[in-house]
């Protein structure tokens, strides 16, 4: 059963289309991340699901009920905001119970939920403090607690970790993952940070220009990106893109990069491309190695970028630059001409005009 279903959603501010015909389905218990650069419409989509912004067209269902025209509080959602949005004059206790008091729940029930959420988030000692007396991480935990006590089936997170420093962000990421494992709520989570998306999500919707480019599991997204944009946006260090011309010779397809020819026998084309197709050959740095199986290409060593666990080696291939993820020990002392082995089965090839995967 789908917990959140969005169909044909459109939203524009004057002449500017922010969401163009969005379809999105989030299954019960799923952790869906909306990922994209700023201005792609991901926060607008979340606001639309929350009911904070009216939409121009389309339909939103939560738990099988059409909520398109319902108030946020009638949608059965809870939300966590980027700026935490705690009520400054209220104590932590009153912040967390405000929504329950508005809904006139019995006092015993409110206390039970407060105790439960405070316990789960280690907030019990902070209940009588004001938000100004809390650290950033504590404020974010209160904001999450305020959502938890609602015991909604659907939780919406709007870039909840982007105001935290790197170390705290990593801690909170683990915390959110733990909460999702223990409580198994349905989550829609907006972020521009692909690490957050990859670590938390069961499925990621990559957005660009008000549209969803691809909606898939993190593995699928990483290994088989459907568009050039997704391939470039997901993965760090980024995928190498080489402009090539595809040549057919009988059943065999090869990519021509200037004088270099890369046979593509190991690549699974969705449909066999025509001869002379202008394409982008994409290969992740970890699929280029100094030794091993795969298509061998002759390169010239340019320089090394040590990154701790790995070293990113840069090589000249014909007229293009190519990066390879190397073990630091291997990378030391490498210079001059090198043969690189490319793992073609794990490469991605896109048409240059449509930017779609071939």
């Amino acid at each position: 059963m789908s917990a959140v279903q969005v169909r044909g959603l459109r939203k524009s501010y004057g002449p500017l289309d922010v969401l163009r015909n969005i379809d999105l389905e989030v299954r019960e218990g799923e952790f869906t991340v909306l990922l994209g650069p700023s201005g792609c419409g991901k926060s607008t989509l979340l606001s639309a699901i929350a009911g904070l912004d009216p939409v121009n067209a389309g339909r939103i269902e939560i738990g099988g009920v059409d909520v398109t025209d319902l108030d946020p509080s009638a949608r059965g959602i809870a939300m966590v905001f980027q700026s935490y949005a705690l009520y400054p004059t209220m104590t932590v206790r009153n912040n967390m119970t405000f929504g329950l008091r508005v809904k006139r729940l019995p006092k015993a029930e409110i206390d039970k939920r407060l105790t439960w959420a405070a316990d789960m988030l280690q907030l019990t000692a902070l209940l009588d403090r004001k938000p100004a007396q809390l650290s950033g991480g504590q404020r974010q935990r209160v904001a999450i607690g305020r959502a938890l006590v609602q015991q909604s089936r659907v939780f919406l997170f709007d870039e909840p970790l982007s105001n935290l420093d790197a170390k705290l962000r990593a801690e909170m990421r683990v915390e959110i993952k733990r909460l999702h494992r223990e409580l198994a709520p349905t989550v829609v989570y907006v972020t521009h940070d692909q690490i957050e998306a990859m670590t938390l999500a069961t499925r990621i919707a990559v957005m660009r220009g008000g549209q969803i480019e691809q909606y898939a599991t993190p593995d699928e997204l990483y290994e088989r990106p459907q568009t050039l944009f997704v391939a470039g946006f997901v993965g760090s260090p980024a995928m190498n893109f080489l402009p090539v011309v595809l040549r057919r010779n009988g059943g065999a397809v090869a990519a021509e990069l200037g004088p270099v020819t890369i046979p593509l026998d190991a690549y699974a084309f969705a449909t066999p491309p025509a001869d002379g197709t202008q394409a982008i050959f994409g290969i992740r740095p970890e699929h280029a190695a100094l030794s091993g199986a795969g298509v061998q290409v002759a390169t010239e060593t340019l320089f090394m970028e040590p990154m701790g666990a790995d070293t990113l080696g840069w090589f000249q291939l014909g007229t293009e630059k190519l990066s390879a993820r190397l073990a630091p020990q291997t990378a030391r002392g490498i210079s001059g001409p090198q043969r690189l082995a490319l793992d073609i089965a794990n490469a991605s090839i896109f048409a240059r005009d449509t930017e779609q995967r071939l």
Partner: protein
Amino acid sequence: MKAARIGLYAFLLGAALFFSIPLLIVVMTSLKPMTEIRTGSIFALPLAPNFDAWVKAWMSACTGLACEGIRVGFWNSFRILVPSVALSVMAGALNGYALAQWKPPGANALLTALMLGAFIPYQVILYPMVKILSNIGLYNSLPGIIAVHIIFGLPVMTLIFRNFYAGLPDELLKAARVDGAGFWRIFFEIMLPLSINILIVAVILQVTGIWNDYLLGLIFAGRDNAPMTVQLNLIVNTSMGEQEHNVNMAATLLTALPPLLVYFASGRYFVRGITAGAVKG
């Protein structure tokens, strides 16, 4: 450096003394009997300071035909002040909250109109206002003058609160809406408790503005409700008999006292509120 400091303080002290001369003269004169005023210099210290003139100004100075002192005006001003300040500040806060946080369609047009409204000189609207109030039977009445003060106070009050609320993060309102709170609940439980400083600023502005008002009180309040400023003028500008300078000075001080006390009591908040507003937008 040392000499420069001494020079600076000497200058400041001189300036302070210079600007306090009128106040000193008023205070000293109010403490002298008329005989002393007639014979001595206005700079002479009172020989036997006493509050006779103050008592007369309060209890029995003549304002036109009635000789009941300025206390009548004091109570009139008070009756005008309290509802005018309370209602104009509340209405301004509510307007500002609605405009800045809920952003209804046309909010910006309304804001522009309010800005213009804040800069229109009173004189332009006086006559139409008189006509309107007399048509609805509120001219020369207490509700009439209160309504006028509220209407004239609204643009500035709305702008002050709008700027304050526009400086709050949008997400605060969104969070409260997700929590299920409505327009009024969010206003009273979340926004208003946040606004203590700006409320104090608004109250100070309105208290001093309305207490010091002369023109509107003269025109709209009617003789029975004439505020203290209008009665003060009647005492000071009487053309019959001898000018009792000591009583005039005492009446002036009595009239000026409430705003002065407000400033002294709340100066700290006033500065804090202004800077808070400045930083938050």
